[in-house]
């Protein structure tokens, strides 16, 4: 047998309280697309950080073409032909494309030469990009292209891609796969990290599955069913949320002609958004990140005030009301960013329960706080949503992502809202917690709450929502009933391929 390109042998890395990787071994062959599969927290990121030289393994060895490979820093890894496209882009908003790319190279050529090479490579691989544009103004898909081109300019032997499709529309995914197939045919190996099984089945030659830091199996994706892979990944049979037959009531939330500039410099303005949500209905809003999701949540929560008539709750204009007034009426929200937005990291769970619960749960009188009632409320959330924590006096940041998310969603659900808006309710959450959160949302809807669920996880939206709309550059497509929607239709609602067709004429 030929020597593999990269061979990992018994890699172990422990952090205080958690073993991120425990004796992980597998090989990546030359010109192979190798999938690394696992849930959030399974240890995928730590593993690739070791390969990329960002983290040093506690024990174990790596062999690159048979030679011991122990990069002390990313620079060394890059010099040996390892390139990485990060999940959360390591890009600099205020710098232009060429400067960003130069920062990822060891010996960048002068800017003028670099720009022409960027054009060259971007045309070869069907990834159009202007080297002099400011990165902050690019769409998520374009930003990913910057990262990919930065990697390709170094002629990598191994290209690591961490969840690359989470920011792409289905059409853009197809184009990305063409690029990756082209690279494979040229002999580049790709380590492809994902938890999206269908993608892996179409693209990858081999798959290694991680669970709780351990290598729990390998398979050839094309010959394995998605369900089998999922069970290897999760370690138990999956539960799909139950939904009972729904009947919708009157319109609870009515948004019409909503246009709002973004509060942040590189944000997206909302443009003429229309939607109605009836009592008991779940409206799913899809779309690639950065297309106005944060702004939509901000407008609905009351953080960004707008024209009174643009948002109506049970016919009453609420656009000018702030978050507290809206909560009083029954319009509750849960933002995407758990630490720092939905919750204050250094404050206790009790204080965080007070953060949104003060009005509806009667946790204050005349401006004075009622600590014991607040603590009770926090304990109720912890109990009802199975939040794993020693108690309500612990700081929010001491909780794991999934547990904090359960707390944040639980805090709003327990206040029995009439309208609930959630953004990315299960982002970065393990499968069991995600299922619990989805079930809670469905149960709430069954009781007559109008729910808006903003998410980038299309599978999730298809699972829980009655109707679907997509955000694209701040515009919301007309909502459609979920049943019967095809992937292609969803992709077009999300904005198709964002101008990528140009390169493929």
């Amino acid at each position, binding site marked *: 047998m030929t020597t593999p390109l990269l061979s990992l042998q018994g890699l172990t890395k422990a952090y205080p309280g958690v073993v991120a990787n425990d004796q992980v071994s597998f090989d990546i062959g030359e010109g192979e697309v190798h999938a690394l599969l696992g849930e959030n927290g399974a240890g995928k990121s730590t593993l690739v950080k070791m390969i990329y030289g960002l983290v040093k393994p506690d024990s174990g060895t790596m062999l690159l073409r048979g030679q011991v490979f122990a990069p002390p820093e990313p620079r060394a890894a890059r010099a040996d032909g390892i390139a990485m496209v990060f999940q959360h882009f390591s890009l600099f908003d205020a710098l232009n494309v060429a*400067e960003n790319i130069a*920062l990822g190279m060891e010996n960048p050529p002068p800017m003028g030469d670099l720009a022409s090479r960027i054009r060259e490579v971007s045309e070869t691989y069907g990834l159009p990009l202007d080297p002099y544009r400011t990165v902050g103004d690019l769409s998520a898909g374009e930003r990913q292209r910057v990262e990919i081109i930065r990697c390709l300019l170094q002629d990598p032997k191994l290209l690591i891609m961490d969840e690359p499709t989470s920011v792409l529309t289905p059409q853009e995914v197809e184009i990305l796969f063409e690029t990756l197939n082209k690279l494979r045919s040229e002999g580049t190996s790709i380590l492809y990290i994902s938890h999206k099984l269908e993608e892996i089945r179409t693209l990858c030659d081999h798959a290694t599955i991680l669970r709780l830091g351990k290598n729990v199996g390998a398979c050839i994706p094309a010959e394995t069913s998605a369900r089998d892979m999922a069970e290897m990944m999760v370690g138990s049979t999956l539960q799909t949320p139950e939904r009972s037959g729904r009947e919708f009531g009157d319109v609870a939330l009515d948004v019409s002609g909503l246009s709002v500039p973004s509060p942040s410099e590189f944000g997206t303005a909302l443009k003429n958004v229309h939607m109605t949500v009836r009592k008991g209905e779940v409206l799913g809003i899809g779309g690639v990140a950065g297309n106005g999701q944060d702004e939509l949540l901000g407008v609905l929560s009351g953080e960004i005030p707008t024209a009174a008539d643009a948002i109506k709750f049970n016919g009453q204009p609420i656009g000018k009301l702030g978050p507290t007034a809206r909560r009083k009426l029954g319009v509750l929200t849960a933002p995407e960013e758990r630490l720092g937005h939905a919750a204050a990291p250094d404050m206790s769970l009790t204080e965080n329960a007070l953060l949104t619960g003060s009005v509806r749960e009667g946790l204050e009188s005349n401006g004075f706080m009622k600590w014991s009632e607040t603590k009770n409320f926090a304990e109720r959330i912890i109990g009802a949503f199975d939040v794993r924590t020693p108690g309500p006096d612990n700081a929010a940041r001491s909780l794991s992502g999934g547990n904090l998310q359960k707390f944040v969603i639980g805090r709003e659900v327990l206040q029995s809202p009439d309208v609930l808006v959630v953004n990315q309710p299960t982002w970065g959450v393990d499968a069991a917690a995600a299922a619990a959160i989805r079930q809670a949302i469905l149960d709430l809807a069954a009781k007559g709450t109008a729910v808006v669920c903003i998410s980038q996880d299309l599978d999730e939206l298809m699972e829980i929502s009655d109707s679907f709309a997509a955000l694209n550059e701040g515009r919301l497509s007309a909502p459609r009933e979920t049943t019967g929607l095809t992937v292609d239709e969803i992709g077009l609602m999300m904005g198709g391929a964002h101008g990528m067709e140009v390169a493929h004429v």
Partner: protein
Amino acid sequence: MDLGEINPVLLVASLMVAATPLLLAAIGELVVEKAGVLNLGVEGMMIVGAISGFAISVETGSPWLGFIAAAVGGAVLSLLFVLLTQVALANQVASGLALTLFGLGFSALMGQSYVGVKPPDMGEIHIPVISDIPVIGPILFQHDPILYVGIALTTAVWATLKYSRVGLILRAVGENHDAAHALGYKVIKIRIMAILFGGACAGLGGAYISLIRVPQWTEGMTAGVGWIALALVVFASWKPWRALLGAYLFGGITVLQLNLQAAGVAIPVEYLAMSPYIITILVLVILSADKSSAPASLGRTFHASH
């Protein structure tokens, strides 16, 4: 009152002198802020530079050694800021204030025996031929060497930030320290270098006040110049040439109000003396609407977790 006593050539020439301490401190702080660090200790570093430079010049008789000592003194004080913010990860605003309070006290302590002493004179460079051109000559080409150092430094910082790889990395660190770290750049190390550079520049600026501008030593003699330099960085939108322009503008106001005081204009002295501070506030108000050019990581603490 006699406005005719104000000689425009001397006025412009002296505004360049008045502007130089501001320029030196502001250029240093600009680099620090470009790296994503907000060091509010400029005033403290300047005053320590002022006394270090003064003491060494008096002891050695060499203004040049004095300026070197001032740069070292400013940098050593900024090292305390490094320890607080980059090692102990303390809040940058509080640490900067601590630096200023400490620096004011420390300089007063060091300077006790230097009150009323006259420092050695640095002399002026008369650039041959062009310094003899009427009007332009005395304005531009008959100054002390440090004034030209300030302008050269501005040019160097501008070119480095704009064209060099070091400059690009520095900007990247200030823009998004997490991304820079992910690419393998040593965020803390780069920031420490920037802070030390800023300290040295502030020290030079301070010594310029005690050795050339005034020249003598009095307690608290920087009188807010360090704070104005901080405002100047905002005014300059983090661009070196605009810092130069701003420094000359403020220098002009300072010199003008001193000249007006001397000429005995009917405005009370106190109101003239407060004018530079009020104008600083006005300028801040006008320019604070646009924060788009501020480095995105400015003032945020970086700690490399896994």
